[in-house]
């Protein structure tokens, strides 16, 4: 009885159900589209686990998602909602890319400089919103949405500047100099048979551990959580709520900015003009939700989402639209969002049965 109750109480249980339900609904749409779910999901699995190098690609896809997931999860835990991770990711990537193209420095300086600048850019982008919230009482969700689009058009503007734009290169920037790239040494990449293998995943895991320590073990985490849960109570206890909100948003923004840097300096090596929002920030919301807002959980949910994105990109081979991944993930978010009520119901049910 006790064991059953603890299962029904755990986040993982509901998350797994939500994921299963997402796949079932995805399968329904595949059937409607006249595609065998077995073939499509088979291809999905094969594209993830079929060869060792596919797994490395999953790690590459997962790295930026773990960062944006951490960004959102950290904001959830500290009582703000960073729906602006998207914009912070974009300005982070934009900053890393610009500095990676424009500066010519030895790698030991160039890489850290680009990364720190990207984190700072994401932090500033988020702090502006924080200041609007703290000083003018403007709800962060609204200003984040606005700043996402400002970042979007800013990035497209910069990509088209003459110093950044690749001549005759279509709709992309020049390539980032090798001295700014986060790639593994060439020999290692060859051995792994994966051209874009990079340090991003190691940075992501390290960031997750650091964020976990901050939230769970430090007085800073205590302070930020207190403000997040009950800003009035925190104020009463002498905690400066405004400063805490800004700290929380700053850290959250920096994480998303780092995600942008990892994406540009690690995987892509250049910035492309966007047609629509890239979605790393919004996918970060999913990663945070699937990971139950736990930093360590975000590592696993980031890997899951990375695998889905990478595997999904191969679906066109079997003539299945890769957008089925969006449908599955949308359903997963929706089901996790509504799972709270089931938890309440099961808790009541379990109690009765226990008697």
């Amino acid at each position, binding site marked *: 009885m006790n064991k059953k109750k603890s299962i029904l109480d755990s986040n993982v249980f509901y998350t797994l159900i939500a994921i299963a339900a997402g796949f079932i609904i995805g399968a329904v749409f595949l059937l409607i589209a006249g595609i065998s779910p077995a073939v499509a999901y088979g291809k999905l699995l094969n594209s993830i686990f079929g060869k060792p190098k596919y797994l490395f690609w999953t790690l590459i896809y997962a790295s930026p998602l773990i960062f944006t997931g951490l960004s959102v999860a950290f904001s959830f835990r500290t009582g703000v909602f960073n729906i602006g991770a998207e914009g912070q990711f974009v300005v982070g990537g934009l900053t890393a890319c610009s500095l990676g193209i424009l500066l010519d420095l030895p790698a030991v300086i160039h890489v850290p400089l680009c990364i720190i600048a990207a984190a700072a850019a994401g932090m500033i982008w988020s702090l502006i919103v924080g200041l609007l919230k703290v000083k003018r009482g403007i709800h962060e969700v609204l200003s984040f949405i606005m700043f996402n689009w400002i970042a979007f058009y800013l990035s497209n503007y910069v990509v088209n500047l003459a110093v950044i734009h690749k001549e005759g290169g279509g709709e992309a920037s020049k390539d980032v100099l090798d001295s700014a790239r986060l790639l593994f040494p060439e020999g290692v990449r060859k051995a792994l048979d994966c051209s874009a293998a990079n340090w991003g995943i190691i940075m992501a895991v390290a960031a997750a551990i650091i964020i976990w320590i901050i939230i769970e073990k430090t*007085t800073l985490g205590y302070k930020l959580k*207190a403000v997040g849960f*009950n800003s009035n109570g*925190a*104020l*009463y*206890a*002498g905690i400066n709520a405004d400063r805490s909100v800004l700290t929380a948003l700053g850290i959250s923004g920096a994480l998303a900015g780092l995600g942008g840097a990892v994406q540009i300096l690690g995987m892509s090596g250049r910035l492309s003009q966007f047609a629509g929002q890239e979605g790393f920030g919004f996918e970060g919301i999913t990663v945070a939700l699937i990971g139950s807002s736990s930093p360590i959980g975000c590592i696993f949910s980031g890997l899951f989402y990375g695998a889905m994105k990478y595997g999904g990109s191969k679906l066109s081979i079997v003539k299945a639209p890769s957008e089925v991944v969006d449908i599955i993930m949308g359903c997963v978010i929706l089901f996790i969002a509504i799972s709270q009520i089931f938890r309440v119901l099961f808790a*009541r049910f379990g109690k009765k049965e226990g*008697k």
Partner: protein
Amino acid sequence: MGKVSHMDESRVVIQMKDIVKKFGDFTANDHINLTVHKGEVHAILGENGAGKSTMMNVLCGLYKPTSGQIFINEKEVHFSSPKDAIDIGIGMVHQHFMLIPPFTVADNIILGVEPVKGLVIDHNTAREKVLELSERYGMKVDPDAKVEDISVGMQQRVEILKVLYRGADTLILDEPTASLTPQEIEGLMEIIENLTADGKSVILITHKLKEITACSDTCTIIRQGKYIRTVRVDEVNENELAAMMVGRDVNFKVDKKEMTPGEVVLEVKNLHAKDYRDVEILKGLNLTVRRGEIVGLAGVDGNGQTELVEVLTGLRKADSGEASLLGKDVFNKTPKETFDSGISSIPADRQKHGLILEFSNEDNLILQHFEEEPFAKKHMLNRKAVRDHAVELIEKFDVRPRGCEAAPAGTLSGGNQQKVIIAREVTNDKELLIAVNPTRGLDVGAIEFVHKYLVEQRNKNRAVLLVSFELDEIMSLSDRIEVIFDGQITGSVPGKDADEKELGFMMAGGKGHE
């Protein structure tokens, strides 16, 4: 107050039989009975949490009873929504007013039963009807004023008119006097008199004995969800009622040893401050509190008490004035600075200010000290020290259930939440303790506990400032009572021989003897 009974015993209008209402495992109402006659004022007496409100929410269709029957005019009814109850003539005035602040008085009154002309709401008809009703029962309201701009007393009249507009024959008033002055309460009594004279029945939910003896015909007592008995009010006295409510004899007196107040701890001079609407609410307030005394601040809600406490605890910036604690300047400091200077406080709203409900009890117990040794070292929390601290305090202050150190504070009952706050604030052992409505919503046992610790602080030669909207509490605890009205102290009387009538007069703006 001359009480005239309009009760017609030959006509039973409401009968609740064996009502049971369960929430999960918790039985809020356990076989409750109630009979109300035409023209009767029927009081329901019980402690906080006894099940009074649940019972009335069943009667007004908000809750469905788990079992039991309801008869209206001797016909059995089954309500599936509040609308059914309204349609049959039962209207409830909730303790927390159910008004839409940005709507006008008239729009609030007609909400849900708007008269229409074609598709359009007929505001003229509505206005006329509202004015007609308000004249008939002697309730002055301005139909075009927005509810957010009118006084609490008028809001209550709007609530009553709302119910009458729907043609209610029976009105349920849930703790209607909670935030009224003694004078406003008298006005309400007159309204009740007018209503019953017109043949309406009134059910009065309260835990104030005086109101029952002043205006009710009968009284039903419930305790811990159970029906105790129904009595005729003219056949019992207040002490008997109290004993039935609590289940044992109650001693309303608080034992205090004689003490002579010592040096001045808190001194406030000529304090001016604005409220949240940017209107000046403290208008040159002066106040002193000495060692070894409890100073009670008596007054009706909204006369500046809240703002005074906020200024003293650093939550609000004052415009001008002085405040010092044992000679140290504490004027317009941050919450942290005032706390460090020696002011601790039991806030009015324990869930909003006193606790982080999602935090564990052990984390709540270090709320002002989480950055200090032994709880923290070099920015890292020392979990063991935090736990040991909590175990000790939970034992000492009798917080239940035991072993709740790691449980979120939100899972505790109201009384135990208050114990956690008191444990924290009393352990701080500051020079001045400010307690704001420290017993609101607690049952008798918990109230005694809180009072004991306030008196203990005084006996330890600390200064205590007690702010309370319950005049009884102020009178039984204070060594000195200061009356606050319109942002100023308007009178001061020794606690020992304070007279309630006189205090009430001063609280409403009358001048007391200096």
